[in-house]
């Protein structure tokens, strides 16, 4: 595949013209190719820069396989006499890629050269190197910097959402800088180790949330938010085993390779990017007002089997704490501003190249007082010491400050849940003007947002140094030394005004460091024999080591809410709420050998094999080393003589197979653990917590991939498809064992999972005219996940309960919801004709009670009546992008979609439960009130013995399909003539809208939601909502 087939190409007008010209040229050549006459003539022309259109002087023009050759003059013009009609001219100069052009009888040949940083022959980043995209035999999807620029998003992960086939990304939270769930070709592990490996400039980096405080779901931080998207040159996602096996034991979930921009020889290029914008809530949810709420509460008492007097304070509209009628969403939500400044300087000489950048982001969240600030700074340098020796480094520093809101925390600490279910009658202020901080067991969410502290400060340095030495022309030795260091400090404080106890306030501090270092050395060999046989080989080893340290304290009884540092705490403890010691350190190391051999014949027949061997300290001494081989072949059938290239101008099929691993378990699990800190009051205690298993080893994934790449009509249409089967065996799973042992579970290698799927990518250039162009790209991914086997003794009634809402069962996918089926509401008592009761001895279901499906027909509603009520896995998902250019305008319109997935809306369940005097959704106005009411909303019952509200049921399963107008970017590039006159290189201005419209049936805030990381997919527990964002930006180049 060559440049113009790449869907991710920028369609800035200048560039686009160049492409069109180039396409025209190629097509022209094609047409004339067969009518060549063997004559000679003088050929002349002008050579220009493909990007700027300016003349290039000094280009060497030679006749291939001939003696003639000239150098182009000052204005880029050249002239060579006596050239054969069918000759091929070769144009070359440093900094530009060499072009060979058949003359085909022409005497005037104008040429535009592409600077070599934008090489026509597009390459992609692969493990330990780069590869020509057209020669790939594996499955890799790539997103480049121009595509990234269109999104104006602030972290690399959200950029990938919908843009990469086979990669499913869901938001755990809409808060700035928060964690996202990434699945490359489905979930292949039961042990939560489902995140891909992230490699930045060749360095595997830490990608799990490193937050220690309130590590509750939906609250993790996205460690990739430390990387400024503006620095990114490209992101490649390696999906099949042929591409990933070189990363062996950590590659089963795919590998995401992020490459940052480097300097190139030439004048310094300065870029300044300024963006500013606002975000706002996409959708408000309707709730009851004070009057409606009071009536619902009264109803709930009257609906009891033995009706009781309502709890008096709720109804007492004179009570100082309960005389409000507050719209909590309005109180907590806001239109939030953000701005960002990027500055980068890139350039270099023949011996030294540099890329320097710095960026500052200040982004407010749409919930009061949430905010994310990030300062990043990067320096990438390369030095050519001698012809053979090259050294360089990449170093980036990020300082981030995340003022978080406890959005998904437990109980009354969750601001999001509270803003939906907090009774509207609770007044904001007391008569004396002070905040109504706490009443009836509830903390005021506005108070939490305003007065509680939940601050995360992090400093991260990712750095690497390399040395590259050319031993002989075809053999290069390279050695990297790299490190990834994160230091994090977190502060938490819950003031006494939000507590019912006088002087009761709590604070916490956590400080942690993650230090990962590694070293890699390898030899890389490339050789072309007789122009047709291309050999490549790689051989290397690496060491990597991780260390994690955490210290922290919890305190309470601070004399004042104003002093929040732990020195003021009256009581200090080093234990968390679960009695587990906060202070801990842990280590892990890995030692690996890897190799690769590749061969291709004329780019027509391609083959590659990889082998990696990893040893990990996490596994039993005898089981430390694992071997991860892969092999792949490709055939470019379009290059065969028999193939008619008129319609299909390029075609290739690919096959690959290989093994990868997953080592995502605790550092010391195989050794067993005897923890200290099992304290009793103030006495230090110790206790055995993990039984050792010396036989523990990797999860192994075997993946088969078949792919087809086609390009039609001189690359105007390109189509890529991949089919895969991914079998994961020896799953690491904490198997429950009889608790009489004193242990609840025991980590073992058990069971297997399969993912099968297909990915399609179609790009078309619908219109390519000088002034107007329209290109589209569409990607669709399908993944079918299935649990193939689970050990017998794990299964309760044939399945494993996976959290509150899911089960794991053989033959079913991960992510099926399991509960009671809701069949409506009994209109009258008599409608319960079978006299169905709650349990064998429980009360009878009456008018206004839900009709639960009595699966086994025993007339009792029991846990045995639970069934599969939904499926979190989409039938397909993907993205659809359109790029338009008109003169100097460029418009990108990007849709993202997901079809066929269900959402278990735990938040809707909560906001329709009368428990704890919750406020209800406005749906409750349709509730059953008297005999004969036909409705789908049951009667609210106080202390309901029939568990109407608390059951996991299909009542809360909703269709989560959606199409989202994810991104619209309109860009205007000022004409060079204008810009150059004021001494600038380029100026463009853009507006971007994100998350503009969502078409969905889902009734929560947003269907792009996934409150839990890990296997409990598709649950909306009241995560921080997604926001709609409008951003204006200006890019200025000097």
């Amino acid at each position: 595949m060559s440049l113009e087939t790449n869907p991710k190409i920028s369609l800035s007008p200048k560039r686009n013209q160049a492409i069109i010209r180039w396409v025209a040229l190629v097509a022209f050549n094609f047409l004339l190719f067969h009518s060549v006459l063997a004559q000679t003539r003088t050929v002349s022309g002008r050579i220009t820069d493909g990007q700027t259109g300016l003349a290039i002087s000094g280009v060497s023009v030679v006749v291939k396989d001939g003696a003639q050759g000239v150098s182009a003059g000052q204005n880029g013009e050249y002239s060579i006499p006596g050239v054969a009609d069918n000759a091929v001219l070769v144009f070359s100069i440093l900094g530009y890629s060499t072009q060979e052009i058949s003359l085909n009888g022409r005497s005037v040949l104008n040429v535009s050269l592409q600077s070599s940083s934008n090489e026509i022959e597009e390459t992609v980043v692969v493990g330990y190197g780069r590869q020509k995209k057209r020669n790939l035999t594996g499955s890799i999807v790539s997103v480049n910097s121009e595509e990234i620029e269109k999104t104006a998003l602030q972290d690399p992960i959200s950029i990938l959402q919908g843009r990469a086939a086979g990669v499913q990304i869901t938001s755990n939270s809409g808060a700035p800088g928060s964690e996202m769930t990434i699945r490359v070709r489905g979930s292949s592990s039961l042990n939560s180790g489902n995140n891909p490996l992230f490699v930045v400039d060749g360095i595997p980096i830490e990608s799990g949330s490193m937050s220690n405080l309130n590590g509750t779901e939906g609250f993790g931080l996205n460690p990739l938010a430390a990387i400024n998207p503006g620095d990114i040159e490209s992101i490649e996602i390696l999906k099949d085993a042929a591409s990933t096996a070189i990363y062996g034991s950590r590659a089963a979930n795919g590998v995401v390779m992020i490459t940052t921009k480097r300097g190139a020889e030439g004048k310094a290029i300065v870029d300044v990017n300024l963006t500013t914008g606002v975000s706002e809530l996409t959708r408000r949810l309707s709730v009851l007002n004070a009057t409606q709420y009071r009536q619902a509460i009264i109803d709930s008492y009257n609906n009891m089997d033995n009706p009781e007097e309502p709890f008096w304070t709720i109804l007492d509209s004179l009570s100082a704490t309960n005389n409000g009628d507050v719209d909590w969403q309005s109180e907590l939500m806001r239109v939030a501003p953000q701005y960002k400044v990027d500055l980068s300087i890139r350039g270099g000489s023949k011996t030294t190249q540099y890329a320097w950048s710095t960026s500052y982001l200040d982004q407010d969240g749409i919930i009061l007082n949430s905010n994310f600030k990030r300062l990043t700074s990067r320096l990438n340098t390369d030095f050519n010491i001698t012809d053979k020796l090259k050294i360089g480094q990449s170093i980036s520093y990020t300082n981030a400050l995340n003022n978080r809101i406890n959005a998904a925390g437990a109980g009354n600490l969750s601001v999001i849940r509270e803003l939906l279910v907090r009774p509207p009658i609770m007044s904001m202020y007391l008569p004396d003007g002070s905040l109504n901080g706490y009443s009836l067991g509830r903390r005021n969410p506005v108070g939490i947002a305003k007065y509680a502290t939940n601050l995360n400060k992090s400093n991260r340095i990712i750095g690497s140094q390399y040395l590259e030495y050319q031993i002989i022309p075809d053999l290069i030795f390279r050695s990297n030394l790299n490190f990834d260091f994160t230091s994090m400090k977190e502060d938490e404080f819950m003031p006494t005004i939000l507590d019912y106890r006088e002087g009761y306030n709590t604070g916490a501090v956590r400080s942690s460091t993650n230090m990962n270092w590694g070293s890699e050395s390898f030899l890389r060999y490339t050789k072309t024999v007789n122009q047709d046989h291309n050999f490549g080989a790689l051989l290397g080893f690496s060491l990597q080591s991780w260390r994690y340290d955490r210290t922290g304290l919890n305190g309470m009884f601070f004399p004042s809410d104003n002093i929040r540092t732990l020195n003021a705490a009256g009581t200090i403890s080093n234990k968390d709420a679960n009695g587990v010691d906060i202070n801990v350190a842990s280590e892990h190391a890995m030692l690996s050998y890897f190799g690769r051999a590749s061969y291709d014949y004329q780019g027509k027949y391609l083959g590659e094999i990889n082998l990696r061997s990893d040893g990990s300290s996490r596994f039993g001494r005898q089981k430390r080393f694992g071997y991860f081989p892969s092999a792949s072949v490709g055939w470019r059938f379009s290059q065969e003589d028999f193939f008619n290239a008129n319609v299909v101008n390029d075609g290739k099929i690919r096959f690959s197979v290989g093994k990868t691993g997953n080592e995502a378990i605790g550092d010391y699990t195989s050794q067993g653990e005897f923890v200290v800190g099992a304290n009793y009051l103030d006495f230090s205690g110790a206790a055995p917590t993990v039984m050792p298993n010396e036989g523990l080893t990797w999860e192994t994934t075997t993946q088969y991939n078949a792919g087809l790449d086609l390009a039609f009509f001189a690359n105007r249409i390109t189509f890529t498809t991949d089919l895969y089967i991914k079998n994961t065996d020896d799953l690491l799973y904490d198997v429950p064992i009889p608790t009489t042992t004193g242990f609840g579970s025991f980590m073992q290698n058990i069971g297997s999972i399969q993912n099968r799927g297909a990915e399609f990518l179609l790009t078309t250039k619908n219109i390519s005219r000088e002034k107007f162009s329209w290109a589209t790209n569409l990607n669709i991914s399908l993944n079918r996940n299935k649990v193939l086997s689970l050990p017998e003794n794990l299964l309760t009634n044939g399945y494993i309960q996976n959290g509150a809402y899911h089960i794991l069962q053989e033959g079913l996918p991960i992510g099926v919801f399991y509960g009671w089926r809701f069949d409506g509401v009994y209109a009258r008592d008599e409608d319960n004709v079978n006299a169905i009761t709650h349990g064998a001895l429980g009360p009878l279901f009456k008018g206004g009670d839900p009709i639960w499906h009595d699966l086994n027909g025993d007339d009792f509603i029991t846990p045995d009546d639970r069934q599969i009520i939904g499926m979190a896995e989409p039938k397909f998902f993907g993205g659809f992008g359109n790029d338009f250019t008109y003169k100097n305008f460029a418009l990108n319109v990007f849709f993202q979609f997901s079809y066929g997935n269900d959402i278990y809306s735990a938040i809707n369940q909560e906001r329709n439960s009368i428990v704890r005097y919750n406020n209800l959704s406005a749906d409750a106005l349709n509730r059953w009130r008297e005999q004969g009411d036909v409705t789908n909303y049951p009667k609210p019952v106080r202390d309901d013995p029939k568990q109407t509200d608390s059951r996991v049921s299909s009542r809360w399963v909703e269709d989560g399909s959606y199409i989202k107008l994810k991104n619209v970017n309109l860009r205007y590039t000022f004409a060079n003539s204008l810009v150059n006159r004021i001494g600038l290189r380029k100026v463009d201005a853009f507006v971007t809208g994100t998350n503009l419209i969502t078409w969905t049936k889902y009734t929560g805030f947003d269907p792009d939601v996934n409150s839990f990381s890990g296997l409990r997919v598709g649950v909306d527990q009241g995560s921080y909502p997604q926001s709609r964002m409008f951003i204006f930006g200006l890019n200025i180049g000097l």
Partner: protein
Amino acid sequence: MKNTNIKFLLFTLIVLVSSCADSFLDKEPISGFSAKGFYKNASDAQAGVYGIYNSMQSAFRQNFALWGEGRADAVSTNQAGDPLALTQNDLTPVMQSARWDNLYTVISRANYAIKYIPQVFDSEEGTLRNQLIGQARALRAIAYFYAVRVWGDVPLIVEPFESVQQDIFSTRTNQEAVLDMIEEDLLYASTYCADNYTGARNRVILTKGGADAFLTQVYMWRKKYQDAIDAAERVIESPYYSLVSMQDWNKIFTDGMSNESIFEVGYNEIQTNALRVIYALGSDSYYFPSLAFRSTFEDGDLRRTRIYDVTQTAPRKIWKFFGEGFNDESPDPSSNNIVLVRLADIILLKAEAHANLNEPDLALPLLNQIRRRAGLDNLDLSGSTALYGDLASAVLHERAVELCYEGHRWFDLVRTGKVVEVMGPINEISDTRNFVWPIHEDIINRNPNIDQNEFYK
């Protein structure tokens, strides 16, 4: 030359890598110990035993009430789940209180301690060594004592599990054999534990008195009345235990570490329990006083206003553990110690043993000692017969009031054979096989060798 270069490079690399490979991958735990690396010296032994108490905190944080009160007549509930199922005698194998996991954690940690403590002490005579083993054995006995009372036959495990090679699928042991082991453990503790602790360890660490008090309970359970009297005698005569005055009665629970307390599970602001959620959350708590309980008081009983919210006609709060007038809707956990055994309990058990041995003269003074503190008149034999049918019943009634909500009532009913008489009219319980709990289905699913209790099959 170039070739030599390459060879040299490769050779260096290989040597470098292979020489450091193994040690590079050896990573020992930093902040803890590997499973087999812990017990090395006396302080480890001490820490190992505190680790057992740590698991006692989880085992009793709410189950003391579910097991000891949930099925008896003093509580009513509106809470679906365990509380409702227990009061309605609708026990199922999915209820939380049918789990024995936490008790076996206590047992497992004790087994580790009992096995490894002897290895870290040189002499077999050391006081600390024997005290620690005594505490470990006593705690193991307490866990087993609850287990046999709740489920009947239970697996008797006295060795730690340290490897998958051991048979982890244990079978149930006859409860008499378990009770024999319990007595043996408690007798050891009664001999070797410390007499008393002061300061922070006061009442929250097992002592001789604690072992004797539990022995009294065990003997009463097994109807070994004379043994019970002897054990109770040792407690009552101990200088470390005395009844507090009525005005300090609530402080036994609110403040803890009273002179009346013999052994309590210690909690604090961080290591918390569910007392408030169980008894005092107002409309949402697990339990509120039943009508039967509210009607059982004799006139003038000073304890009534100290036990529950008498200001309400339908009281929803139990004040006993929080003090009179306690009014708070917070679902936060509690930091109160949970008193498992106290002197009034032992005095009344001794009285009951004497009554059963037909020694009313020895029983009555003990009974009246408790009655007088509560502002009630002395009872004589005829008075107690007139009021409660017989002397043993009078003692049982006294226990029902004095020890209410402390987790004794259900076991008292089972022990004295009054379950059907008392609870039958309330929830129709009639079958003695129904007196034990079902074994949680998760336990059975994990272990094919565990059979469900007969009544629940």
